């Protein structure tokens, strides 16, 4: 039986991957690579209501609930941001709303991205996390009503 990894397990996996890098150059290279590999979002989703504010760059994010799990897809016009989003998606996508709401996401800190990205940019990262949790909260609330 192949278990899907828990949020914490994926976080740990990313922290392990980053521990292999000696320099910031390598870390960025890796993030950029992930950014480039992120599946593009269809144009129809790139509209204002899917935009996440708080970044110099634009992030569009959509989510859906399938069989009780939340799935996210996103894109950005900036590659590094796209790499960061892709990590967040890898960690959170495919989990139940409650798990997403509870996720600590301290991998961001552990891989050095929270301190490393200047305040203005890390706000962008934080607003992405906020939006993802907000979506999960909405799904949770809807499920509660049914």
């Amino acid at each position, binding site marked *: 039986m192949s278990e899907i990894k828990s949020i914490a397990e994926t976080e740990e996996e990313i922290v392990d991957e980053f521990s292999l890098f000696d320099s910031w150059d390598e870390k*960025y*290279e890796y993030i*950029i690579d992930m950014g480039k590999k992120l599946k593009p979002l269809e144009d129809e989703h790139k509209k204002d209501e899917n935009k996440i504010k708080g970044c*110099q760059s634009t992030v569009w994010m959509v989510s859906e609930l399938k069989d009780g799990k939340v799935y996210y897809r996103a894109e950005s016009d*900036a*590659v*590094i941001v796209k790499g960061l989003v892709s990590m967040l998606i890898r960690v959170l996508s495919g989990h139940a709303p409650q798990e997403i709401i509870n996720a600590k996401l301290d991998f961001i800190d552990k891989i050095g991205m929270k301190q490393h990205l200047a305040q203005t940019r890390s706000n962008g990262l934080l607003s992405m996390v906020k939006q993802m949790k907000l979506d999960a909260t909405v799904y949770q609330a809807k499920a509660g009503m049914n």
Partner: protein
Amino acid sequence: MVNSASLCLCGEKMIQTLEHTAFDVQAIRQHFPVLNRVVKGKPLVYFDNAATTQKPQVVIDALADYYKNYNANIHRGIHSLAEEATAAYEATRDTVQQFIHAKEREEIIFTRGVTESINLVAYTWARTNLKAGDEIIISGMEHHSNIVPWQLIGEMTGAKLKVIPVNDSGELIMEEFHQLLTEKVKLVSVVHASNSLGTINPVKEIIDAAHKVGAVVMIDGAQSTVHLDIDVQELDCDFFAISSHKVYGPTGIGVLYGKRALLEAMPPFMGGGEMIKDVSFEKTTWNDLPYKFEAGTPNIADTVALKAALDFVSGIGKATIRQHEDALLKYATEQLQSIDGIRLIGTAKQKVSVASYVVEGVHPQDLGILLDNQGVAVRTGHHCTQPLMNRFGIPGTTRASFAMYNTKEEVDVMIAGLHKAIKLLR
């Protein structure tokens, strides 16, 4: 060329003399402690000078000296410290007057910076002098702080905003300006040098033409004051705005220059202490210039330290600094142009040392992050000039802006960093 500079700190507490034969950038760098910083393991290359310049030791010392030795509230006290603090505060006014060649010291009003200076004029002169049907001319390359106050005043008074368009090189289209300039125009407010493009605007021509139709002219000197010789009498502008932090001085302090006759006729901006002559519940009378516009306890420490900054700049000589910065800009421009897929935004004939660029297929934010990773501080984004970015059809640029302490070697670091970043990002 021999320059001897007397750097005089408040209250004749310290006198330092600099002797330069030619411009010695390494000697200049010694005055700026922050330039010893290491960022991301690399020596700091600070190219965000149009946002704010770094501070020389004399400015840092002046701040500390004030708080350590003669901190007191000014003007009202009769004790010694209050007298010393008042003298130092007022000495800065004299220095500013000389720095921009104002006719009278009373025409120098201390504000928090350009933003407050423009708002002061908007909420006093413009609010009381403009009415429906009047027009205000600004330019297409204004900082948001020279757009939004006029929009707000426009809403209050019914005055309309007109905009001088910008050509592909980032210069004002002066024929269009002369077309816009009718008898309806009561105010023209333009930036002397653009923070996003570096363009130096022909403000003398603008001022003279505006005066012919009876309009008042405000000049945003945020970027020009540090690079160009400013003579407000020769320019004949009615208002001129300065931010200290862009002229090697502290943050939180700035200047509004205004012609006496206009300032006299304007109502106060803020009410409170210091700005009044007599207060009763029936009638309050205003203090004389400049105090009418300096309500409350002012930013004494930063004002005092601003003098140290201006003396420092004057001591080296703006012409000498400008020569150095122009050479850097020329070198950086050539180097940037040699990079494949780069587009310079702002190629005016007359420029201050600002190099703005976009790289095909690369987002400015990505460039900014990767350059920071090399220790290079540049600014990315719209630089508070969104309408200008729209004019060029771009969301923003990467901007390198140079100061007296920057070097050719630092430009090389940026160029190498760019090559590396572009290779990764494309």
